[in-house]
């Protein structure tokens, strides 16, 4: 990776962090409704992963989707506007935190039914296979989603039909408040791919460089072999499952321990050690992000509510 790409990754990680921190404040002020799931702590996963894709590769993820949206190139303005339910959000304020998509950026959505988007991801790959191209669908999901039937139907079909899907399990150790080993027969999720004869691997998700390398390798395999791949990425969310999580299922010590491995801190150290960027340069990026987030909040707050004409709009293509 060249310097420019590394700096871009750093910028995206900081942007996700600051954007979500402001989002949490706005949520507490009652300006954001519904469920909101923060990505804080997991930024290295989607940042490293999506940096490795070709622009023609499709990305689809679950409801923890703000970071993925930013990595796919959706603007902070649009993300914040959608959070506030404004007409300038990418889903016109009708999707909210869990439903961010922009097909022009090949971001095919946050999807909020656990595991529900996995067969749809397989469907994208069916469509691409039918069209005769070698696009890859990158499908991200949590460890909790690997216990539902959708996961197994989708993996089975992907392997049987040789679909180009990169199945990415973001193992953040908890499905809501239930630890992986309390919910899954095998706590090493990648083993589930073995049952379908699917190539797989596991990588440290707190280190964006390692994630990027592993993703690049997996994508190369899928592109050339025309087969699916499951990549398990070990990570940890620093915040609750969603806003208002009482967090009785884990100790503060555990959270603190993981926070010492802050993916942004690790990446800063890496950039300094490799003499790619010094602390001062990175502080400059931090300041730039601060301004961008502030502008995004101002943009979102000033944006209009969706008009009542939107209530009945876009239910059907043909009326």
């Amino acid at each position: 990776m060249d310097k420019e790409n590394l700096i871009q990754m750093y910028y995206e990680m900081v942007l996700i962090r600051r954007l979500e921190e402001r989002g949490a404040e706005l949520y507490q002020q009652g300006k954001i409704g519904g469920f909101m799931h923060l990505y804080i702590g997991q930024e290295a996963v989607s940042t490293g992963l999506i940096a490795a894709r070709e622009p023609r590769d499709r990305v689809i993820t679950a409801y923890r989707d703000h970071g993925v949206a930013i990595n796919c190139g959706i603007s902070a303005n649009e993300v914040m506007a959608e959070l506030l339910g404004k007409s300038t959000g990418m889903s016109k304020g009708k999707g909210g935190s869990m439903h961010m998509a922009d097909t022009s950026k090949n971001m095919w959505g946050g999807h909020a039914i656990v595991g529900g988007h996995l067969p749809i991801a397989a469907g994208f790959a069916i469509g691409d296979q039918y069209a005769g191209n070698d696009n890859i669908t990158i499908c991200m999901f949590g460890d909790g989603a690997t216990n539902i039937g959708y996961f197994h139907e989708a993996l089975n079909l992907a392997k049987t039909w040789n679909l180009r899907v990169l199945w990415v399990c973001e193992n953040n150790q908890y499905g809501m408040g239930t630890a992986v080993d309390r919910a899954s027969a095998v706590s090493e999720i990648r083993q589930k791919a073995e049952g379908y004869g699917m190539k797989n691997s596991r990588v440290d998700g707190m280190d964006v460089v390692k994630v990027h390398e592993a993703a690049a390798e997996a994508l190369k395999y899928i592109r050339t072999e025309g087969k699916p791949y499951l990549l398990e990425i070990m990570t940890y969310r620093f915040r609750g499952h969603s806003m208002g999580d009482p967090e009785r299922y884990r100790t503060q010590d555990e959270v603190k321990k993981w926070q010492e491995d802050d993916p942004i801190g690790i990446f800063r150290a890496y950039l300094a050690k490799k003499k790619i960027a010094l602390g001062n340069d990175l502080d400059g990026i931090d300041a730039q992000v601060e301004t961008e987030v502030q502008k995004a909040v101002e943009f979102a707050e000033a944006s209009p509510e969706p008009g009542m004409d939107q209530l009945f709009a876009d239910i059907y293509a043909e009326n």
Partner: protein
Amino acid sequence: MARITMREAISQALMEEMDRDPAVFILGEEVGVWGGTYAVTKGFYDKYGPERVKDTPIAENAIIGGAIGAAMVGQRPIAELMTINFGFSAMDYIVNQAPKLRYMFGGQFSVPMVIRAVGGGGRQLGATHSQTPDAIFAHFPGLVVVSPGTPADAKGLLKSAIRSNDPVLFLEHATMYQVRGEVPDGEYTIPLGKSTIQRPGKDLTIVTYCKGLELSMKAAEDLAKEGIEAEIVDLRTLRPLDMEPVLESFKKTNRAIVVEEGWKSYGVGAEIVSRIYEQAFDYVDAPILRVAQKEVPLPYNRNLEQAALPQVPDIIAAAKEVLK
């Protein structure tokens, strides 16, 4: 005009659309090598090959979820559920994904997918394989629910469904594949979301669709012998529901019954009757009655099963009751 069966009409529609548009392909259980469990896709595998006629695992979530995904990226998949009863396994995709994706993402996604599914009782398949749960699916905005009652409508409606950019659930009836009817020669389509008068009359209105149409036409013939002329309105599409012909007919006859094969409670009849009361109250000259399935899981035994399903004499009796 050719007189062909419902099965041939559906088959023709599929084939004509596959010939017309290379984006159209079929996926489902036993649609290919087997030729379709109801032989609707017989010969398709040999003609179009495994890429366009895809045999799937027995995995309804993968079938419907996969069809949704392929539709979202520009193909026009036709997913076949071996029966609508298996649709419950894929309920999330049919009611919670396909109908929501366009709306929830501000119009960014289209799901031009057709789900073909056969339903209905009367074949002694027992309670889990004999249902007519159309009303459940028609509850959800964003989904188009079609259920034809004649070969000509089946062909024209299926062609429109395949060309539609919305997800369409196309419900066929297991005992109607042998029903014959006149089908126009050559290319034609019938618009989705349009009810129609299948038989003109002046004394009462029978509102129905699919299997209920077959039964109601027979009942109307018998009623005619007694000098009662029933007007039959065929809904054809359950959602979006076109009430215009129903209301127009009712304002003329002032008396109506609704005939459906599904259960009476919370059913299509309940919806139609409510709408008539809401929109044509001053034209009501007698309470509107519903003819529907008895409130039991369908039994295997033939006599019991037939007793639970609506029959021609039930329709005649209801018609005479509202004419009192």
